């Protein structure tokens, strides 16, 4: 190999770890193809976002300190295939630990080296075409936290536009929340359902046979809703789409 390898820490997220490990593998494969040596810290667990969003600040701080400890011992950028977990580490960790004399600085340091997956590819590695090939008719749903808190909009669009054989269709009200919102989907399930129904009808109207997003929470929410309605539309993480290079 001519280029030196960039060491990258994969924070795979607890949900991908437990529910959809293939997404993590796709991320690893894509990064490997672009001169990255991917490291996975076995001691990583969950970033604490579910606790933080629900108002359990003490627990969220404890989990934040754990994640900081895991990654403080490592080098290289931290890459996360989720906009909301990235937002948690980039924006919320420094905020919730700002009065912690030990972890304040550590949180800021981790924040600076943490990137969402498509952001890392396009903005950090300057890779716009990963040589992907995917046959399908796709709509893209930008997940809220990535979109509004990290401005993840351009990056997925560039990567998808450069995916061969992928037909893209417009999704009406694409930037409207699918109704997941973590504990919200259980606590306020009826409102969540009403939001999901609107999202699903837009997805169906788009004519897509695959819906692409970049946060597993939203993905299982929309997939779970579509399955229950017996609608055969697959919801996939963008990493799964652009890992396909055959």
């Amino acid at each position, binding site marked *: 190999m001519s280029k030196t390898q960039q060491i990258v820490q994969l924070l*795979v997220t*607890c949900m991908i*770890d*437990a*529910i*959809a*490990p*293939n997404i*993590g*593998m796709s991320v690893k494969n894509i990064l490997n193809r672009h001169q990255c040596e991917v490291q*996975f810290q*076995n*001691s*990583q*667990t*969950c970033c*604490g976002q579910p*606790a*933080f*969003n*629900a*108002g*359990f*600040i*003490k*627990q969220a701080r*404890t*989990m934040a300190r*754990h994640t900081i400890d895991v990654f403080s011992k490592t080098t290289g950028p931290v890459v996360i295939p989720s906009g909301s977990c990235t937002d948690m580490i980039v924006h919320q960790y420094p905020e919730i630990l700002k009065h912690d004399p030990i972890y304040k600085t550590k949180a800021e340091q981790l924040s600076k080296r943490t990137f969402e997956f498509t952001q890392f590819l396009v903005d950090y590695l300057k890779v716009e075409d990963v040589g992907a090939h995917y046959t399908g008719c796709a709509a893209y749903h930008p997940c*809220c*936290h990535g*979109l*509004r808190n990290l401005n993840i909009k351009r990056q997925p669009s560039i990567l998808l536009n450069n995916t061969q054989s992928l037909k893209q269709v417009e999704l009406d009200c694409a930037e*409207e*929340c699918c*109704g*997941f*919102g*973590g*504990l*919200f*989907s*259980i*606590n*306020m*399930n*009826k*409102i*969540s*359902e*009403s*939001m*999901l129904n609107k999202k699903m009808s837009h997805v169906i109207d788009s004519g897509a046979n695959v819906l692409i997003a970049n946060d597993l929470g939203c993905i*299982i*929410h929309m*997939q*779970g*809703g579509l*399955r*229950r309605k017996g609608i055969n539309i697959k919801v996939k993480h963008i990493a799964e789409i652009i890992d396909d290079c055959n």
Partner: protein
Amino acid sequence: MTVTKLTFYDRIDNALSHPEKQLAISAGAKAKYINRANAMAEFQDMEMTRQLARQVRANTLSKLDLYLEQFADNVETLGGKIFWAKDADECNNYIHQLAVRHNVKLIAKSKSMLTEEIDLNDSLGHANIEVVETDLGEFIVQLSNDRPSHIIAPVLHMTREDVGTIFNENLNVPFTTDPSELNTIAREHMRHIFLNADMGISGVNFGVAESGSICLVTNEGNGRLISTTPRIHVAIMGMERIVPTLTDLNTMLQLLARSATGQKLTVYNNIITGPKRTNELDGPDELHIIIIDNGRSNILASSLSEILYCIRCGACLNACPVFQSIGGHAYGSVYPGPVGSILSPLLFGNHFDPLPHASSLCGACKEVCPVDIDLPSLLIKLRTQNIQKGSAPLWMQISQWIYAVTICNPILFQIFLQLAQTITNRFSQKGWITKLPGPLKNWTNQRDFPALAQKSFRQMWSSNKE
């Protein structure tokens, strides 16, 4: 504010069981959302103006006592009267006494959410003083004995047919759904009110400290009529609604109109500086400005003071997918939507504690806020306060602790993962579960839940390594 007996969850159920109403609300809010986006898109340096407005609000609130004093001094120099009301009762009593003293029989009112907050109409009604709402939307609400469902568009929840029926039943006119005919009916009815009212009552969009002026914006002109025709004008202002200068007012008005209705400027922008002067023919003999606290100074002193930046444009309501789904009435407060979910528990107490939980934290509200209030963060802060008060159900408190302990111990986490794998695999079909127990059934009532993968990522990773 009058509080309903129904719980928030009951009100949500009610709202969701009327799909035709929800359709009207959703369509109305969406239209406003799009109008705002278009108006903002053609506004040069929008983001700069927005950040400037935010700074103006932050600066004003940090020295609110000084600006209020300057404002009050200027009003009094101009011949206006200032009354400082601690709460709703003090404000309503002052107006009642004033009305009795001046033998007021009929009051014409322009739209003001603050007067809804303090139940002014009920209070005056008990004293047999007739109050007529002159804003078209508020007039419809008043005729039908309803409540406004949106801070800018009080009858967002109604259709034209509803309005036609209300006019037909209350004003002795034939039924019509034609907007211009409906307008004419209201106009004819209202003209008589404007000419005969003894007192006009309005809110205040902004008080200008440097000039002692109050600014009142309306699209129907009723604000101008009620503040010039009757003998007495009473303006009620929340203590946070101050801008230091007329230049600041200019910034705010540009954002307010675009954010609220998608207009470049509201049709009538009244800047009222004192009562009628000796050489003038028009205007009220007396101008009374009531500056009301009603819980605001407590908010100002709290970690949630940013919510007082709000200029009541309603953009966050229109953008909110939760508001679009359940409408304003479900919140049970005069202030619905994201801003209401923060203001209501702070102003009106515990009954409104569940409101901050009704958000997916999607951030659409912050995106459209003309003064860039970080509404999602404020919602989380209130959730945190609720948890600290111990208001979360026991199952949630216990599961959050188990979750935290597990997360901080990678070995426990792995054991937990394997346990969950075994359990979910037993109950799943083709990798999906259709029925979960306990609180999780709220998920599986409407959606399938994925089983955990046969092999987790960490297991795959370590077997690849071997």
